[in-house]
């Protein structure tokens, strides 16, 4: 009889809880009422046990979702970005380009485990974390409620790791086909400490200067990393492209992508993986994750159309490379906004980003003549900037009541809520991201150049980096 009571009450409780979320199990109130009157009311210990089971069930759902999201974001780097970038370079450099992404998967993971996570997410100053979680001390199965109360802290850590992995990989698009491998490795190690960790801490860490969720001085709304990931990497990319100089033969010699097919596959993997990137930033399998998922998808679609329209008008034909680049631009722009804006705003943000990034990549780049080989700045730097600004316009408390007054009432978030001041906060965050990226990258480039030299010698650039740096050919195709 007692067992039946537990099962019925657990089923009722789960049913009531699940009714708020996506899954639906049918509650059975009639049976429970009969059971409750038929025997004794549960004791405090039994209620506590049931409450723990409910919490465990919620945790189980959230944790499953978040682990899948971490996997999706890793997939964005490998093979998503590797394919996307790999297809855009000349055949003789395909492996070297993919190696850049893969080496980040290996290198950043180790640094993150030892010290990177701690510098981002342990308490420290407003600008950088401390050493509390060195060697992942204190990071295990128990949640850290400041960040995410229903998932193990270890899940949060490994999810965040994937962001730290993809960010430096994005920069590689700027210096593709001409950077020494050793120099790139050294650059990325320093960059992760000097640019990524401070930016991540400021926006997402406890006590961070720009942290909107935890009371930062200039709360910058950045749901999944528009400033932390895209602006820092995109602007760093521009600095690298300017510092390293153009590829031999650029812009006169034609250097079309050797395989738009590979880039296409990579872009589709990026789109799907981005659901983990944005919707996973809700840190739970809840309505906010749904909202971010939808916004992400809508922005990608609208941006692909935006780029296609711009290209169709300018060139008379929409290209495959264009629509996939457009989709990526939209995904970049919606990244900071994804958990703050509604679906219609997401469509608008995407469409604007598609057209804007097309303009950056086709007009602005050729006007200024910099060789940002794979458009890391044109898509990520520019897309991230416009996305961060539009977040300040379209963020609304109806999607995410992130600002609350002392009584816990929701305060206006963005411009459309009646809080235009948020735009100023967004600009502060954007400015800090730009500034940190520019200064940090310049310093690192100078140091690495002095230590090992940045560019490969001319003969290597002509021969191709696959052979020169890695002793391999991408395509042998011998019977």
């Amino acid at each position, binding site marked *: 009889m007692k067992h039946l009571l537990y099962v019925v009450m657990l089923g009722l409780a789960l049913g009531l809880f699940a009714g708020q979320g996506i899954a639906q199990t049918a509650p059975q109130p009639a049976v429970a009422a009969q059971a409750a009157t038929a025997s004794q009311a549960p004791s405090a210990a039994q209620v506590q046990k049931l409450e723990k089971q409910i919490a465990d069930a919620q945790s189980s759902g959230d944790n499953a979702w978040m682990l899948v999201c971490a996997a999706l974001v890793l997939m964005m780097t490998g093979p998503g970005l590797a394919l996307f970038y790999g297809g855009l370079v000349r055949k003789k450099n395909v492996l070297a380009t993919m190696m850049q992404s893969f080496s980040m998967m290996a290198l950043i993971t180790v640094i993150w485990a030892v010290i990177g996570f701690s510098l981002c997410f342990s308490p420290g100053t407003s600008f950088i974390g401390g050493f509390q979680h060195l060697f992942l001390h204190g990071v295990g199965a128990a949640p850290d409620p400041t960040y995410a109360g229903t998932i193990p802290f270890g899940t949060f850590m490994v999810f965040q790791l994937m962001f730290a992995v993809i960010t430096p990989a994005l920069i590689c698009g700027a210096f593709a086909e001409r950077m020494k491998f050793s120099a790139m490795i050294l650059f990325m190690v320093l960059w992760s400490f000097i640019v990524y960790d401070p930016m991540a801490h400021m926006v997402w860490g406890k006590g961070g200067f720009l942290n909107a969720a935890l009371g930062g001085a200039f709360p910058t709304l950045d749901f999944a990393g528009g400033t932390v990931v895209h602006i820092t990497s995109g602007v760093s990319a521009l600095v690298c492209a300017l510092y390293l100089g153009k590829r031999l033969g650029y*812009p006169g010699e*034609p250097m*079309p*992508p050797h395989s738009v097919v590979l880039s296409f596959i990579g872009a589709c993997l990026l789109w799907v993986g981005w659901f983990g990137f944005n919707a996973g930033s809700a840190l739970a399998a809840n309505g906010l994750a749904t909202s971010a998922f939808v916004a992400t998808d809508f922005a990608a679609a609208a941006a692909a159309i935006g780029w296609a329209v711009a*290209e169709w008008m*300018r*060139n008379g*034909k929409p*290209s495959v*490379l*264009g629509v996939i*680049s457009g989709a990526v631009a939209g995904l970049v722009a919606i990244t900071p906004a994804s958990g703050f804006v509604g679906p219609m705003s997401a469509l608008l943000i995407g469409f604007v980003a598609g057209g804007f990034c*097309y303009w950056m*990549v*086709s*007009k602005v*780049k*050729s006007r200024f003549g910099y060789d940002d080989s794979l*458009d890391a700045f044109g898509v990520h730097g520019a897309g991230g900037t416009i996305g961060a600004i539009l977040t300040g316009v379209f963020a609304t408390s109806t999607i995410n009541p992130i600002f609350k007054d002392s009584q816990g009432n929701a305060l206006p978030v963005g411009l459309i809520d009646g809080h235009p001041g948020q735009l100023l906060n967004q600009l502060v965050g954007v400015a800090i991201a730009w500034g940190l990226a520019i200064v940090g990258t310049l310093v690192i480039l100078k140091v690495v150049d002095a230590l090992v030299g940045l560019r490969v010698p001319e003969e290597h650039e002509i021969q191709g980096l696959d052979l020169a740096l890695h002793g391999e050919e991408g395509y042998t195709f011998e019977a």
Partner: protein
Amino acid sequence: MEHVKSALHEIGVEGLTISEVRGHGRQKGHTEVYRGREYNVDLLPKIKIEMVLADRLVDSAVEAILRAARTGKIGDGKIFLYPVEEAIRIRNEERGEAAL
């Protein structure tokens, strides 16, 4: 390509070597656009067929190719005739027409 091959088989030509090449004569190329940058592609994909024939088959082979491959437009291609000094079968060292 298929028309040319069947036309040649019909007149008794059995050995062919086919290569995929790039080239152009007076045919203009095309423009490709990647992320706003234009590339003029004037090396066009073509097929090159090489055959070694007995002298008595040359005229009918030329006739067969002209019939099968002509479309009347620029880009139809060309036939070049060269004298061949010797033909040798590697397997058994047969020479001359027996090696074809």
